[in-house]
């Protein structure tokens, strides 16, 4: 493993994170993809600056607002564009300059054009041939089965809908059974049925021990296939790891919890007696919004308090623990 370099992680003011433990954000024991001090600039536009992280097997979501350098990073990892400084390695091989690296990973890019004059089967088979697979037909058939595209395999790509194109692109990226899958907005343009299927595929590959790095914008869907996230803001690493733990780390934002009960006023006043409660708000619909510094004990206390005061509890939910809330905290300036 290349020597670990101290990553001078300067914490942005809006997100007070308890000290960054490991110098390089290690997400697993045996890393598959390693980036060290990677930067990319176009003239005076700095797209990515001094990025260091490593990703292991399982599903990792690459998140970040538009223009944050997220897709530039994915393009550098896949070898589409060269980095200005730093090293990138996929299973110890550099993505640019060594064609052998392309055996180890498959890329599903967000580019929509394909070869309209080829049929789905021909397209996937061509990818198998270019990967120098011994049995291209067999590999093609297996990949098309996985993405359930047999019914349209012999139709021309020109007539494919957006969802069908996404799936045949996945088949092409899978045909050489790579250990690593890089996917740029794979759910873009798929309809709910296709999306449910694609999410299931991603989860299965994750369980199989493959390493998946997936960039996406629709966080409510990311929650359904990834627990590990890598957030890039303004070209810098904002956060890495399990998003629940990350939420814990953001301790300058008190946890907001929403409750609905039979007697909100009574429950509210009872809760105020607890030392860890910072504030209680009751909106016109009678919902309670409680801010607490110690979420863990709060959840344990509430049932007891309700019973003592004979208040029926209808709803209790963290108002800002969803990936969307965590993301919005991380991206603020």
């Amino acid at each position: 493993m290349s020597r670990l370099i101290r990553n001078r992680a300067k914490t942005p003011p809006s997100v007070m994170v308890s000290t960054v433990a490991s110098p390089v954000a290690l997400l697993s024991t045996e890393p598959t993809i390693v980036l060290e001090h990677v930067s990319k600039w176009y003239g005076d536009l700095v797209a990515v600056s001094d990025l260091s992280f490593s990703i292991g097997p399982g599903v990792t979501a690459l998140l970040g607002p538009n223009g944050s350098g997220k897709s530039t990073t994915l393009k550098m990892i896949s070898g589409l564009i060269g980095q200005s400084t730093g090293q990138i390695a996929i299973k110890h091989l550099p993505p640019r300059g060594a064609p052998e690296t392309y055996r180890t990973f498959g890329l599903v890019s967000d580019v929509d054009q394909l070869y309209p004059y080829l049929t789905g089967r021909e397209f996937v088979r061509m990818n198998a041939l270019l990967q120098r697979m011994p049995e291209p037909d067999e590999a093609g058939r297996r990949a098309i089965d996985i993405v359930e595209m047999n019914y349209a395999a012999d139709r021309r790509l020109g007539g494919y809908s957006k969802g069908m194109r996404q799936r045949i692109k996945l088949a092409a990226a899978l045909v050489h059974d790579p250990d690593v899958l890089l996917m740029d907005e794979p759910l873009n343009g798929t309809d709910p049925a296709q999306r449910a299927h694609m999410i299931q595929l991603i989860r299965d590959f994750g369980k199989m021990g493959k390493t998946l790095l997936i960039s996406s914008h629709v966080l409510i869907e990311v929650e359904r296939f990834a627990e590990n996230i890598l957030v890039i803001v303004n070209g810098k690493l904002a956060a890495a790891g399990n998003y629940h733990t990350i939420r814990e780390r953001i301790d300058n934002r008190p946890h907001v919890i929403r409750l609905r009960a039979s007697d909100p006023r009574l429950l509210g006043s009872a809760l105020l007696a607890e030392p860890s409660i910072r504030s209680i708000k009751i909106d016109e619909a009678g919902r309670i919004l409680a801010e607490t510094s110690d979420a863990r004990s709060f959840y344990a206390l509430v049932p007891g308090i309700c019973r003592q005061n004979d208040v029926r509890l209808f709803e209790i939910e963290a108002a800002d623990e969803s990936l969307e809330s965590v993301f919005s905290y991380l991206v603020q300036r």
Partner: protein
Amino acid sequence: MTATATRIEVPHAPTPDLGLPAAESVIETRNLTKRFGGVVALDHLDLEVPRAAIGLLGPNGAGKTTLIRLLLGLSRPTSGSASVLGMDTGAEGLKIRQRVGYMPESDVLPSNATAADFVGHMAEMSGIPKVHARQRAADVLYHVGLDEERYRLIKGFSTGMKQRVKLAQAVVHDPSLVFLDEPTAGMDPSGRDAMLELILRVYRLMGMTVVLSSHILEDIERVCDYVIIINGGKLVLSGPIGKTAVDTQEIVVRINSDPQQFMDRLATYGIHEVRLATKGLVTPYPELIVGHGSDAVYDAIRDTAADLGVPLRSLRSRAHSLEEMYLNAVEAGALELESPEEQADGD
């Protein structure tokens, strides 16, 4: 399944009269059919769309884009008829298009023009005199959230900014009805929130009926109050969203401890209809789904948690999410038709 999205609250403004008796539906189709060669894109579609924020759903190739083009009077139906704002699409296509806005899904903006110049031009193309067009374009671009960028070339715009310009050109001529095709596609989370809020403003504040076609069901849930699902060119389901009876709802509980112990304890309170959720979110906390939402059940859950001293991470009732409604209506495995729309448009 997915957490129900929080609704965006926007103050209600009086909706202007559309020169239509209130009850009359904004869009009506009578066994509307459209065939491209052998492929049937729309199959005897009967629709009555009220004046509301309408979600238009359906798998890729289900006929959504074809329907929108027909309603805009851009293509002629093979058989049957359709009327928009009381005007027949076949005969009065021009008049309809003067009072209807359309935000297409694909990239349709000229890269080598400035936003203000182009939106102003589009206003003129809808009959607004040159003097007013410039001023309205600047106003509308400001309202969709573009400040000084509106005077820069579109080619430097991010996806989010381009979507805003597309929305601006759809509403600049103050239409009574607006079709929005995948308005939030490709936008980052904060961009999506802003765009959904804009769409609600267009509906509530500007009083325009909105037909929103999107694949992201969460957006539909947050904005629309009426939904239409089309599959294979046929109407599969249409009706208001989220108005299902309370007692049919299941209760979803997430605890931070051994689920079996919790379920046994619950049994002592006489609650047996409990199962462990499998699909759902990737979450560290096990999720239990309890049968039906009567008061006794809520108390039982509360008391079980209090007895075991277990942190009750989440407790909420859940109507069938729109996604379930959608998947049942469309039966996930529906064979995907040769998508006629793609061919029809691409020349």
